[in-house]
């Protein structure tokens, strides 16, 4: 890679991009008319807030009812799986966290040793909770957004069965010490075949639904979900081909995969949820369609190239690191575009944050997207990375992204979807309340403690005059605080799952209106048990 080759390739790429831009403008692909932002509303519906309640209020939209009816059983299955994996992942994560400050606890059980239980936690989140919830939400949203029924939902059921079988086998393998050895790619490639087939079966009905759409405009959420469903299989296949990758190249591939699973799979699925539920609940279309477009294409271009920042200072080609750092900073563009758009849309409707659980979770998630992305951009800079690389600071950042952003967006979506597919409102408002505050408080404690502890750890490691053990000892109180935060998060999840179980088994009070946090001065209309 000499300088001339880089310049020539940059020039050719620019000319190509300019050509693609001119072509897309001529074809009207970047139609910035606000009409496309109104796709999510029925004819007269804009201006009417929607929050779930099995009893309908306001506008009746037949196509939406049919869409919900067609997807309900499949979505229900995905959400049930997501709940199970959420609990598995939380318990495994908390165990790993405690083991870092109590290293001799349960040390004689191999599958509970830190290196394995931590990996079980990661895989249960990465291939269990996040994709099950994210795909379930996509299966719910796509028929609604395309004003059609879900086509071939049975394939998705089969796909989910294979996927979960693969995940159980994969986590069992890791517990038994059988691993491919790459972070994020531990599950043996033989087991990965189940994910590939299962994933294809899940994707098939969504593609079928997409090509049978009955709307002209593709809504913002469809761009994110549509591309994510095609991006992930490529990432997963390329990363898991046995025998292809070697040495340092395998390390660059490893972080190309590791960061793109976040950036090109979970992030678009979570953003799709926010772009749908936020305007839907306040009854206002997204403020700027142009900003949505900018945000989407900038994310699609920049996010894919940031993975190299995980190898800053490592034995990989220097140009690759520099490229990834530059593109990490460029990620500020889509993030700020999204943030402005979200804020503008929500302006004048902040009151509803007090009332609507979905809106509160989703908005919190959106804000944390901004925060974690901006933090991530600066963390990629060499001056910052020098301190934070190899420390718990990175772990804190990862949880800000995957938990405070992605998981909160999914929680919010689940609070909207479950009443729609089960025909029954959430029975206990106080459980939603506990879930929100325990999860938000828990991640707050988690993030602050590990951020401070990680930074101190990094500073101790950079000071050659201090022994290495200083960098370990300085983190201990913060690791303990992290376990407290993790316990709060687990407790929050228990409230979510308990409420969900009550909802689907018909326990608890029946409500005939949305389970909002505050029901105003009107008397409670829910019927007692």
């Amino acid at each position: 890679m000499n300088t001339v080759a880089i310049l020539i390739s940059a020039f050719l790429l620019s000319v190509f991009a300019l050509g693609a831009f001119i072509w897309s403008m001529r074809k009207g692909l970047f139609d910035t008319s606000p009409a496309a932002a109104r796709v999510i509303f029925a004819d007269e519906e804009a201006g009417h807030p929607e929050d779930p309640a099995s009893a309908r209020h306001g506008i009746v939209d037949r196509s939406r009812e049919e869409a919900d009816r067609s997807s309900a059983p499949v979505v229900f299955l995905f959400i049930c799986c997501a709940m199970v994996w959420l609990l598995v992942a939380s318990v495994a994560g908390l165990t790993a966290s405690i083991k870092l400050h109590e290293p001799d606890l349960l040390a004689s059980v191999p599958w509970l040793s830190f290196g394995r239980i931590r990996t079980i936690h990661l895989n249960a989140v990465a291939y269990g909770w996040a994709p099950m919830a994210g795909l379930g939400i996509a299966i719910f949203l796509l028929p609604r957004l395309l004003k059609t029924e879900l086509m071939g939902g049975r394939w998705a059921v089969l796909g989910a069965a294979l996927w979960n079988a693969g995940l159980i086998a994969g986590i069992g393998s890791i517990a038994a010490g059988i691993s491919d050895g790459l972070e994020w790619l531990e599950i043996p490639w033989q087991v990965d075949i189940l994910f590939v087939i299962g994933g294809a079966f899940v994707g098939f009905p969504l593609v079928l639904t997409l090509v049978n759409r009955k709307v002209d405009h593709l809504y913002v959420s469809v761009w994110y979900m549509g591309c994510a469903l095609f991006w992930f299989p490529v990432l997963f296949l390329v990363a898991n081909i046995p025998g292809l990758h070697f040495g340092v190249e395998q390390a660059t591939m490893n972080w190309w995969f590791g960061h793109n699973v976040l950036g090109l799979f979970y992030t678009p699925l979570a953003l799709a949820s926010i772009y749908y539920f936020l305007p839907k609940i306040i009854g206002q279309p997204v403020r700027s369609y142009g900003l949505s477009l900018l945000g989407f294409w900038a994310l699609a271009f920049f996010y894919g190239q940031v993975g190299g920042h995980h190898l800053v200072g490592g034995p990989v080609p220097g140009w690759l690191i520099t490229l990834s750092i530059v593109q990490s900073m460029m990620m500020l563009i889509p993030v700020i575009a999204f943030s402005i758009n979200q804020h503008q849309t929500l302006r004048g409707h902040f009151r509803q944050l007090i009332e609507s659980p979905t809106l509160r979770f989703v908005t919190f998630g959106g804000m944390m997207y901004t925060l974690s992305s901006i933090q991530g951009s600066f963390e990629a800079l060499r001056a910052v990375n020098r301190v934070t690389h190899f420390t718990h600071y990175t772990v804190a950042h990862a949880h800000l992204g995957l938990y405070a952003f992605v998981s909160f967006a999914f929680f919010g979506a689940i609070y909207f979807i479950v009443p729609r597919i089960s025909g029954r409102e959430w029975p206990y408002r106080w459980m939603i309340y506990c879930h929100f505050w325990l999860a938000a408080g828990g991640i707050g404690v988690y993030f602050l403690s590990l951020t401070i502890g990680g930074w101190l750890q990094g500073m101790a490691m950079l000071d050659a005059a201090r022994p290495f053990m200083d960098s370990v000892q300085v983190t201990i109180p913060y690791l303990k605080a992290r376990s407290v935060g993790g316990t709060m998060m687990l407790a929050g999840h228990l409230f979510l799952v308990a409420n969900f179980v009550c909802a689907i088994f018909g326990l608890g009070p029946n409500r005939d209106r949305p389970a909002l946090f505050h029901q105003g001065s009107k008397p409670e209309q829910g019927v007692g048990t």
Partner: protein
Amino acid sequence: MNNESALLAGGMTMLAIATSALVVIPYLQLHDVKPTPGLKPYTTAELRGRGVYIANGCIYCHSQQPRDSSFAPDAKRGWGRAAVAGDYYYDSPHLLGTMRTGPDLMNIGVRQPSADWHLGHLYQPRAYVSGSIMPSYPYLFDAKDAPDAGEKAITLPPGYAPVGKVIVPTAAALDLVAYLQSLNRTGPVLPPIDGAAAR
């Protein structure tokens, strides 16, 4: 936007660019890298030990990539010179790691050549390093009344073995220690041929 084909074509082009930059070009650029002089292939026992290292997730706390002394004081900590691509010639899968909850292990075989130390430290890290938070690995050892023929009990600091028992390493523990002892990338880094240093 109202054309799903254009959307997906655009999205996949973006991914193709990213894949070229982060996977394909490194593949081409690094394909002909030769092992650093003096680097030897792992023996069978060392490879088995590497498997134990992977199975127990050592990588989640230990990196294997000392950084350049102009960037971080890794060399001053005795972790070795900055790693180069040729150091990983025989490594599959790579074990570069992303955390330093414990120290870098790229040259642990040079820094700590004693098998006795490694075995005892794996059995109970806190017997050797006070304040260590490394897990102990009792399941890689057997507690017996006396070692069988051909076995050798490990020597532990007083008070760490169960009363009246001796601690005998399993084959997995011996392999793991063989692997750790083999970790040595202190060989000289030769400048690349044809003046490619400018790359």
